[in-house]
C-alpha cells in the first residue's frame, strides 16, 4: 500500500518537475502524508525494518524518477536553468511538487482569519517573537480530525540527513525541541508564507514546478519573514532569488567547466579529493550506503569544487568550500550551487578564501571593531588575553592604536571559521540555515550582526559563570574564553536563542547597514595595508600578496571618501569608526525621509 501511493505521487510530480529521490525528500519534509504512508507500512512491519524498507523504496523510486525526469527536462529545457544532464542536476529544491496539505496538514480557510491580525501591517523593525498564547489558540484548528498530524521523525537523522546528535547536543534534546517547538513553528511559518505569496499575487514555489519562481518584492515585512525562517523546501529557490543568482549565471558555462575539468591537473585536485569524504561524514547523503559505491552527493561535490577551482584560480580550492557546497547541494542543483559559490566567495565573503586568506584577517578586524563598539567587555577580555600591555605600547611604528587590526588576536582564529564556513559546524544545522536565509537576503553585514549576537550571548555566559563561581571576572583566562567562543555556539539548537538577540531593537548593531560594513572593511584593509607596506621592506614573505588583496578590497568599492566619512579628520586613535558609522546611518535615514 505504502509503496504504491508513494510511487504514484512521484511519477505524478515528475511529470512536471525535476525532483529529488524519495530518500532525500523524506528527510527534508517530515510532516507529510508521504512520510505518513511510509511510516504506517514501516511500523506495521516493525521498527527495525524501517530503515531497510526505506532504502529499498528509495532505490525503486529513484529509478523511475530519473527516467521520468530525463524525459521531462528534455521537454522543458530552454526556459529554465536546469541543464540537460539530469543525472547530476537533481536537487532537493523547491521544485518538488508537494502540496501544502501533504506537508503540513490542511491549510484551512479558517486559518486565514486567525492569522491575519497577527502579522498585521506593522512594519516595525522589531522581531516579533512567536507568542505562546496565540499558539495555543490556534491549536484546535490545527488538530482538526480530518487533517493529518505532522509526523514525528524518530530516526537518528534530521530532515536534511544530518545526525541529530552531536558532541554538543543529544538526540533527546534535539527531538524534544524539534517536536515541541520547531516543527510547529515551521508549520505556522509555511502557512504565513503561502498567504504572503497569495497576497502578492504570486504562485508559491512548490506548486509551479519548473516555472520561473518569483518571490515578493523586498520589504520590511518580507525581511521579517525571512528572519523567521524560509520554509525548508523553498530554501533553494529563495536563496537563489535573494542572492540574485540569475545575475551571475552564465548559461551553459558550468557544464562546460565540468567537461573541461576532465583535463584539469592542478594541485587543488588532490586537496579536494582528500576532503570529499570529510565533508559531512555524519550526513546520510554524503555517506556511502554500499561498500565501494560513491554517493551521488560526493560526486556532485567533486564536480562543483573542481569546476570552481578551474573557474576561479585566485581561490582554487580552500578547505571550508567543501562544506559550503555540500550544504548548497542539499537544496539546489549543481549548477546553481556552483554559481552560489561564486556569489558567496566573491560578493558576500570577499577575499576570505583567497590563497593568503587576507580576507579572513580583514573580516576578523571588522569583527574586532564591532566588538569594541557593541560588546566592549568582550573586546577588553580579548585584548587582555592577547597582548601584553607592553607590546601594545610599542605599537609605535604606526602608533594609531589599531595594532589589533594588524596583528589579529589568536582567539579570532576560532571566529575565522565562522566566516570561512558561513557558520557550518559552528552552529547547529537548523540555526545555520536560518543564518543563511538572512545572509542572502540582507547581505554580508548579517555575518557581522550574527557574530556580534553570538558574542553578546557569550558575554552573558561569562558573566553567569563568573558570578556563580563567585570569582573575579578577570579570572577568566584565555583557555576559557577560547572554549566558550568555540563551543557555546554549537549548543544553540534553537535558532530563536540567537535570533532574539539580533532582532531586539535594544542592540544598536542591528541598525548597521551593508554600507557601514563595506566602509569598515575598507578601513581595516587600509590599516593592514599600511602595515604590510612597511613589512614589505622587512620581509619578503606574504607582504605583496596581502597588499594585492587589500588593494582589491579597496578597489571594489568607490564609496570611500574622506570628506564625507571623515575617518582621518576625526581626532585619531580614540574615535571609533563604527560609532561614526551610526551617524552616517542616521544621516541617510533622514535623507530618505525627505
Amino acid at each position, binding site marked *: 500500500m505504502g509503496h504504491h501511493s508513494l510511487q504514484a505521487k512521484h511519477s505524478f510530480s515528475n511529470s512536471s518537475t525535476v525532483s529529488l529521490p524519495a530518500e532525500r525528500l523524506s528527510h527534508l519534509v517530515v510532516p507529510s502524508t508521504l512520510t505518513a504512508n511510509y511510516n504506517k507500512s514501516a511500523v506495521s512491519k516493525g521498527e527495525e525494518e524501517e530503515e531497510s524498507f526505506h532504502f529499498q523504496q528509495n532505490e525503486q523510486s529513484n529509478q523511475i524518477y530519473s527516467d521520468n525526469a530525463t524525459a521531462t527536462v528534455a521537454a522543458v529545457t530552454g526556459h529554465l536553468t536546469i541543464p540537460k544532464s539530469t543525472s547530476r542536476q537533481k536537487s532537493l529544491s523547491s521544485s518538488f511538487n508537494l502540496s501544502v496539505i501533504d506537508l503540513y496538514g490542511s491549510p484551512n480557510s479558517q486559518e486565514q482569519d486567525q492569522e491575519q491580525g497577527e502579522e498585521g501591517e506593522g512594519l516595525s523593525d522589531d522581531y516579533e517573537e512567536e507568542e505562546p498564547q496565540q499558539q495555543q489558540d490556534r491549536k484546535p484548528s490545527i488538530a482538526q480530525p480530518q487533517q493529518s498530524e505532522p509526523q514525528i521523525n524518530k530516526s537518528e537523522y534530521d530532515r536534511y540527513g544530518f545526525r541529530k546528535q552531536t558532541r554538543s547536543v543529544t538526540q533527546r534534546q534535539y527531538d524534544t525541541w524539534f517536536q515541541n517547538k520547531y516543527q510547529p513553528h515551521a508549520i505556522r511559518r509555511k502557512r504565513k508564507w503561502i498567504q504572503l505569496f497569495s497576497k502578492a499575487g504570486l504562485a508559491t514555489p512548490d506548486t509551479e514546478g519548473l516555472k520561473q519562481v518569483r518571490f515578493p518584492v523586498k520589504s520590511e515585512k518580507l525581511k521579517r519573514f525571512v528572519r523567521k525562517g524560509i520554509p525548508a523546501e523553498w530554501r533553494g529557490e529563495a536563496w537563489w532569488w535573494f542572492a540574485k543568482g540569475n545575475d551571475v549565471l552564465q548559461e551553459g558555462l558550468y557544464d562546460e567547466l565540468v567537461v573541461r575539468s576532465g583535463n584539469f591537473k592542478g594541485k587543488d585536485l588532490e*586537496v579536494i579529493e*582528500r*576532503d570529499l*569524504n*570529510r*565533508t*559531512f*561524514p*555524519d550526513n546520510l547523503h554524503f555517506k556511502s550506503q554500499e561498500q565501494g559505491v560513491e554517493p551521488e552527493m560526493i560526486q556532485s561535490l567533486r564536480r562543483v569544487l573542481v569546476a570552481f577551482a578551474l573557474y576561479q584560480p585566485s581561490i582554487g580550492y*580552500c*578547505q*571550508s568550500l*567543501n*562544506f559550503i557546497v555540500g550544504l548548497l547541494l542539499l537544496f539546489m542543483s549543481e549548477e546553481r550551487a556552483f554559481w552560489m559559490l561564486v556569489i558567496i566567495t566573491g560578493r558576500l565573503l570577499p577575499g576570505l578564501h583567497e*590563497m*593568503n*586568506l587576507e580576507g*579572513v584577517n580583514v573580516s576578523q578586524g571588522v569583527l574586532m571593531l564591532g566588538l569594541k563598539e557593541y560588546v566592549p567587555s568582550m573586546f577588553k577580555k580579548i585584548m587582555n588575553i592577547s597582548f601584553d600591555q607592553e607590546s601594545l605600547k610599542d605599537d609605535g611604528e604606526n602608533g594609531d592604536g589599531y595594532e589589533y587590526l594588524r*596583528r*589579529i*588576536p*589568536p582567539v579570532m*582564529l*576560532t571566529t*575565522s*571559521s565562522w566566516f*570561512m*564556513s558561513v557558520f557550518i*559546524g559552528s552552529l547547529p544545522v537548523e540555526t545555520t540555515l536560518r543564518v543563511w536565509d538572512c545572509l542572502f537576503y540582507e547581505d554580508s553585514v548579517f555575518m557581522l550582526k550574527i557574530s556580534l549576537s553570538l558574542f553578546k550571548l557569550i558575554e552573558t555566559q561569562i558573566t553567569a*559563570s563568573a558570578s*556563580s*563561581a563567585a*570569582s573575579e571576572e578577570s*579570572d577568566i*583566562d584565555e*583557555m*576559557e574564553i*577560547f*572554549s*566558550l567562543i*568555540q*563551543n*557555546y555556539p554549537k549548543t544553540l539548537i534553537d535558532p530563536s536563542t540567537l535570533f532574539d538577540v539580533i532582532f531586539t531593537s535594544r542592540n544598536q548593531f542591528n541598525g548597521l547597514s551593508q554600507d557601514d560594513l563595506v566602509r569598515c572593511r575598507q578601513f581595516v584593509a587600509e590599516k593592514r595595508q599600511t602595515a604590510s607596506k612597511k613589512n614589505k621592506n622587512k620581509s619578503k614573505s*606574504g607582504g605583496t600578496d596581502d597588499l594585492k588583496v587589500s588593494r582589491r578590497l579597496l578597489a571594489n568599492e568607490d564609496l570611500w571618501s574622506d570628506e564625507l566619512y571623515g575617518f582621518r579628520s576625526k581626532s585619531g586613535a580614540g574615535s571609533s569608526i563604527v560609532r561614526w558609522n551610526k551617524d552616517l546611518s542616521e544621516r541617510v535615514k533622514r535623507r530618505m525621509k525627505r
Partner: protein
Amino acid sequence: MSKSNLSKYKIVFLGEQNVGKTSLITRFMYDTFDSTYAATIGIDFLSKTMYLDDKTVRLQLWDTAGQERFRSLIPSYIRDSHVAVIVYDVSSKKSFELLDKWIEDVKIERGENVIICIVGNKNDLTDERQVSLQDGEAKAKAHGAKIFLETSSKLGYNVKSLFKKIAKTLPEFEAAGKSGEEGASEMIDINVENTTTQDGQCQC
C-alpha cells in the same frame, strides 16, 4: 578555585591535511575513533587535565587545518606553544616530505624553546605504508625532535604513550621523565580526567 593555579601548557598539532591530527586528539580525549572526521577549518581547541605523579597540569590542545594556505594564520598559535606535535601519515610519502616545512615554521616562531614531537600516524595501514619506521626515526633525529613515535588512532596504538611522553617533557614532570628515560614499562600510571571545556568551571 584551584584551577587557576594549574600550570597550563599549549600543545599545537601541525601537519598536512588528512594525516589524522583530529583523530589523534579525539582518541586521546574521548578514546573513540571514527573512520572519517569533518575537515578542521581554522583551529579547534580542546583542553584536558592530566594527573601524573601527584601533580596536575592542564593541557591545551590546538588542532589546526592542514591545507597549505592556512599556514599563514597559524604562527600566532605556535608563538607561545610549549610543544609542537607534527604529524605525518605513514601511508603518504608526501605528508612525510612536507614535515620539514612545518618544522621550519615552528623553529622560526619558537627557536629552540619548544619541544618538537614527530608522529607517524596510521601505522595500522601496513599494506599501504610508504614511510618506514627507520626513515621516521632518522628525520626525527635530524630535526632534534625530542619525541618520535608511530601511532594508530584507529587501534589506539601508542596514543596514550605519546601523551605520557609529552607530559614528561613538561617542567612539572621533568624529574620523573629523566629517571624513567625510554622505559615505557616504568611509566607511572596516568589518570586522565576529562574536563569538557564548559563545565570545566565547576571542577572544585
